[in-house]
């Protein structure tokens, strides 16, 4: 066996014998002839990596014996920028790390800054609008996750159906804040604008239509026999592994861990909403295969969409007229201190560690990006799977490269 030069410092490559045992326990047949593994670059331009990520795969035929993710192709120094622009000026940059859930990013950043400003009061209507936007954005983000996962598995049509509904959500956001992707709407102290007239009714209409569309996605893709065969028992993450790798969000819940920051460490009014029964936390049950496989993660995302819908409806009932933003000065000065605030983003816990020395500019702005952490599990998950499975696994981690690289 002639191993390529990079092979030396690869921690995750398993011994050949172990790698040649499929997850189902079947042993791949191979002969003792002089062969060498093939090193394939999956990416930086590859349809399955969801952006410019490179996974260096070591393969033996269709069997992946080693995988090594390489990041940094989309590194935009977000943290360094956070230390050089003013507090409010950094807000548009938060849109850009996970561009599929910009509302949640805005929210996380705003909450982190607000944690340093104890005097600042956020009006209840502002909080409610924040929740509606965050949950709608979660639906939109999971729709992309579902659609692109379909693409990874080879089904095209669900992608278009998912984008059809996502367009609707984006049109709603466009009405409320003027942008379709990078909203910068949730600001320090509340939200930036009150809802335009009739907007809440449109959201309610969306909720009604979305429910039946959701059933269609479910029948078309999630319950499809081929899809189940492709994803069940593939990429199984056990509970211990999930803890060890610090996974959060649907990745953690897919492994059967009942933990959701919205319920267990409530921010905004999520605690109240949960007490009112507005949402439940779905976890992976291993219905089609093993607990923690790709199907479970997808299923968790699917169910979460419906739970988010429940939350939106609850907020629509609770919302009352009033101010939407607290008393925020034009140039924000944050008292000295440091805070880490993590919220439940569609992809996991998005945390901001903000450190202020009392000035107009943050001293340290740390972004704990869920995709970055969730991606680390690939190194352990991919060896021993087939090439097509590795695509399914990357898809099920639902990464956004803008966030892994920041």
């Amino acid at each position, binding site marked *: 066996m002639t191993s390529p030069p990079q092979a030396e410092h690869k*921690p995750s490559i398993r011994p050949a014998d172990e790698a040649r045992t499929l997850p189902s326990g079947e042993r791949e047949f191979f002969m003792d002839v002089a062969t060498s593994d093939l090193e394939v670059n999956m990416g930086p331009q590859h349809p399955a990596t969801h952006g410019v990520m490179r996974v260096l795969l070591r393969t033996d035929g269709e069997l992946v014996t080693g995988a090594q993710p390489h*990041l*940094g192709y989309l590194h935009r120094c977000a943290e360094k920028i956070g*230390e050089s622009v003013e507090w409010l000026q950094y807000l548009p940059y938060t849109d850009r790390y996970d561009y599929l859930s910009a509302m949640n990013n805005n929210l996380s950043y705003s909450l982190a800054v607000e944690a340093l400003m104890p005097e600042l009061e956020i009006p209840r209507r502002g909080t409610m609008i924040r929740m509606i936007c965050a949950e709608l954005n979660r639906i939109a983000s999971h729709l992309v996750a579902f659609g692109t996962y379909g693409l990874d598995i080879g089904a095209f049509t669900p992608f278009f159906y998912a984008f059809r509904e996502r367009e609707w959500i984006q049109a709603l956001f466009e009405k409320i804040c003027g942008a379709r992707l990078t909203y910068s709407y949730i600001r320090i102290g509340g939200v930036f604008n009150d809802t335009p007239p009739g907007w809440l009714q449109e959201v309610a209409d969306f909720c009604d239509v979305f429910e039946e569309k959701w059933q269609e996605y479910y029948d078309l893709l999630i319950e499809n026999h081929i899809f189940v065969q492709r994803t069940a028992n593939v990429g199984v993450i056990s509970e211990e592994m999930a*803890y*060890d790798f*610090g996974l959060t969000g649907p990745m953690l819940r897919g492994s059967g861990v009942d933990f959701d920051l919205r319920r267990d460490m409530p921010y905004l009014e999520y605690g109240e909403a949960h007490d009112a029964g507005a949402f439940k936390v779905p976890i992976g049950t291993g219905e089609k295969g093993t607990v923690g496989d790709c199907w479970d993660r997808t299923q968790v995302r699917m169910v979460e969409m419906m739970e988010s819908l429940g939350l939106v409806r609850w907020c629509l009932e609770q919302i009352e007229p009033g101010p939407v933003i607290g008393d925020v000065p034009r140039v924000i000065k944050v008292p000295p201190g440091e805070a880490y605030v993590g919220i439940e983003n569609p992809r996991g816990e998005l945390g901001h560690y903000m450190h202020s020395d009392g000035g107009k500019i943050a001293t340290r702005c740390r972004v*704990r990006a869920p995709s970055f*952490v969730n991606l680390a599990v690939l190194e352990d998950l991919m060896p021993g799977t087939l090439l097509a499975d590795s695509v399914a696994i990357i898809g099920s981690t639902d990464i956004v490269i803008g966030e892994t690289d920041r």
Partner: protein
Amino acid sequence: MDFQAIADHLSVAQVPGLLSVELPRSPDKETKDKGRSGLPYLCVEPSRIVEFLTFCRDDDALGFEVLVDLTASDPSADDENLWILIQLLSVRHRQRLGIKCLLPKSALSMPSSTKVYRAAQWHERECMEMYGVTFEDHPDPRNMLLPDDWVGYPMRKDYEFPKEYHGISCE
């Protein structure tokens, strides 16, 4: 448990490495103290961090299964210390813990937490390239986000931006 209870529990158990507790305090005009808002942190000795984290993970009352975040911070160019900030999360007990290690800039080296939490691996790699912290016994100490031949540690406050990189002007 709230933060104070965790801190008390740790000090009662005499966990190695626990130094002090940083609590938020309100500003005081007389002593010209600007105050400290935000969240409390535990200060831990960097060289004992592995033992400390192991205790936090294995102790039943604490049960911090998840290392959420590990990062560094350079408060200012004049400061002689670099901060290593660790966030722990307990799924069982629904609690968080912030840990801070002060690492002198003259000797930027501390043990790697990868053995306790695999999640630390990528965070430490990022820390290494961005702040120049050396994590001893790190299994894969390559650059994570930056190119392999990048000079300097960009997140430090005293970092000077290069004029050009491989013939590409950075002006």
